[in-house]
């Protein structure tokens, strides 16, 4: 760098050592490591199709390491739908959708979905997947849900490979003596420990001397032979109520809400920090129709006006003001969806009352949402129309 001005330069640059690899035939020869790099970026459907290319491709693609890499880069968020969210036998089946363009959600291409059956984990538990609407969370491609509240079983699944593990959230051994009840909150990814972690709230003995009872949070790192460990301070939180609207955001935070509560609770897996997030200032909040979702890696809230005339979508950005407690939230209004016009243009199909959860951006300005009855609909900001695609 320093010899910029010296005209008679150093020796003409020696050739960089050429890579040892052999050079191409007519076709550009693309090394396996680059092919793998490319294939981590194709949709899951293409991955499975490419397994039919050759034996080497099959062994490159059909393994856990590749799936993990594919998940971590996947831009299309797999969407998992239970065939029968209200109960019954069929609710042991997940349908995986991976859509990038809105046409992927047309009824005719619905066969894009693949079924994943969970045959044996539900045996003997007729309440399996009860409450499932409120407790499915997705984190970096892994999906996690709790079985019947209080039963203590949590299922963690990779919907693309169909693999799953069952974790029990109850304390074992000595700890079980001080545990009265526990509520599973969610799955998150901690960059600090570089692992997936489960978060639960436990009701139990806080102080063995004076027998005080209370709720305390605990974390379990997946994979390692670890046990539940205390996680942060959450004394302001009341966990005896039913958790609703649980969402994971890519920044390693899980958000949830309690009914009739004017704020959102959050837990940051990196900082092991609990925090309240105030809702944005709606016109006259009617809390029964607030719903959380994730759009473009940001927390998102949808809000239906009390007279059901419109739906508002807001997105949150975490603002770091420095320091452990200096995290704030800035809200931005994304969309104002008039449901009256939508109703007229939608040939008689009415937006039903209740909450709408934003699911994902499908293309620019097209948002997939689902309502409280798990009907899916696509909102198109450009022509203000909605469809019922799934």
């Amino acid at each position: 760098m320093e010899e910029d001005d010296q005209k008679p330069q150093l020796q003409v640059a020696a050739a960089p050592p050429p890579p040892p690899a052999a050079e191409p035939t007519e076709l550009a020869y693309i090394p396996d490591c680059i092919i793998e790099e490319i294939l981590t970026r194709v949709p899951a459907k293409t991955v499975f199709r490419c397994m039919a290319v050759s034996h080497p491709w099959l062994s490159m693609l059909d393994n856990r390491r590749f799936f993990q890499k594919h998940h971590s880069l996947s831009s299309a968020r797999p969407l998992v739908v239970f065939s029968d969210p209200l109960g019954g036998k069929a609710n042991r089946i997940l349908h995986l959708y991976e859509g990038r363009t809105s046409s992927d959600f047309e009824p005719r291409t619905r066969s894009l979905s693949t079924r994943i059956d969970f045959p044996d984990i539900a045996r003997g538990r007729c309440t399996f997947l009860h409450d499932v609407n409120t407790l499915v969370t997705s984190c970096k491609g892994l999906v996690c849900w709790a079985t019947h509240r209080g039963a203590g079983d949590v299922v963690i699944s990779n919907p693309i490979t169909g693999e799953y593990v069952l974790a029990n959230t109850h304390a074992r051994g000595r700890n079980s003596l001080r545990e009265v009840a526990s509520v599973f909150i969610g799955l998150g990814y901690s960059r600090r420990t570089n692992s997936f972690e489960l978060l639960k709230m436990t009701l139990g003995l806080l102080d063995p001397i004076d027998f005080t009872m209370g709720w305390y949070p605990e974390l379990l790192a997946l994979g390692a032979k670890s046990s539940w460990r205390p996680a942060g301070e959450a004394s302001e939180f009341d966990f005896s109520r039913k958790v609703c609207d649980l969402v994971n955001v890519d920044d390693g935070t899980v958000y949830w809400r309690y009914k009739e509560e004017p704020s959102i609770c959050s837990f940051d897996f990196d900082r092991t920090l609990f925090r309240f997030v105030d809702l944005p200032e709606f016109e006259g909040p009617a809390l029964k129709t607030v719903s959380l979702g994730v759009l473009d890696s940001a927390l998102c809230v949808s809000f239906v006006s009390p007279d059901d005339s419109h739906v508002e979508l807001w997105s949150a950005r975490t603002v770091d003001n420095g320091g452990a407690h200096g995290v704030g939230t800035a809200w931005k209004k994304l969309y104002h969806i008039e449901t009256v016009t939508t109703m007229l243009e939608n040939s008689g199909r009415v937006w039903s009352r209740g909450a709408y959860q934003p699911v994902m951006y499908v293309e620019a300005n097209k948002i997939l949402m689902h309502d409280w009855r798990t009907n899916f609909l696509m909102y198109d900001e450009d022509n203000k129309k909605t469809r019922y695609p799934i």
Partner: protein
Amino acid sequence: MAAETGTPTTLTLKSNDDELFSVAESAAILSVTIRNMVEDGCAGGVIPLDNVDGKTLASVITYMNGISAIPADEEKKKSYRDKFLSDKDFETLADMVLAANYLNMSCLMDAVSAKIAQVMEKKSVGWVRRKFGIENDYTPEEEAAVKEEHKWTFEGVETDDDN
């Protein structure tokens, strides 16, 4: 990077078919391979790039100049990359991904890989074999079995005329 004089430094790059290209050092050092050579002081004369042909190198330099002219605005850079790659065919993209790998340019590598992935999305197995030069080592029975197992993935695939 530049010296105190403030005059932009120009590097000369040579492709493997002996074409010479001038490029501003500030743009060329997007390539870690070139940057290392510059920092090692061996960029005085002509920098030979033995794994890149002239046509591909011309493209890469267009990209280097284009992207380095954009200030730190990730959205604008992304739209430049999208536009830059939009009219490239598979063979050009394949050459570029190899060049990006050799030149160690992660942003171009990511963008071209993603573009190839996008091109592949609805292509048939035959198309993939042909374009990547992969020999089919399945027996017909094995191939049928693999395809049957992932039957759902073969819907909506573009028809393949010259398979």
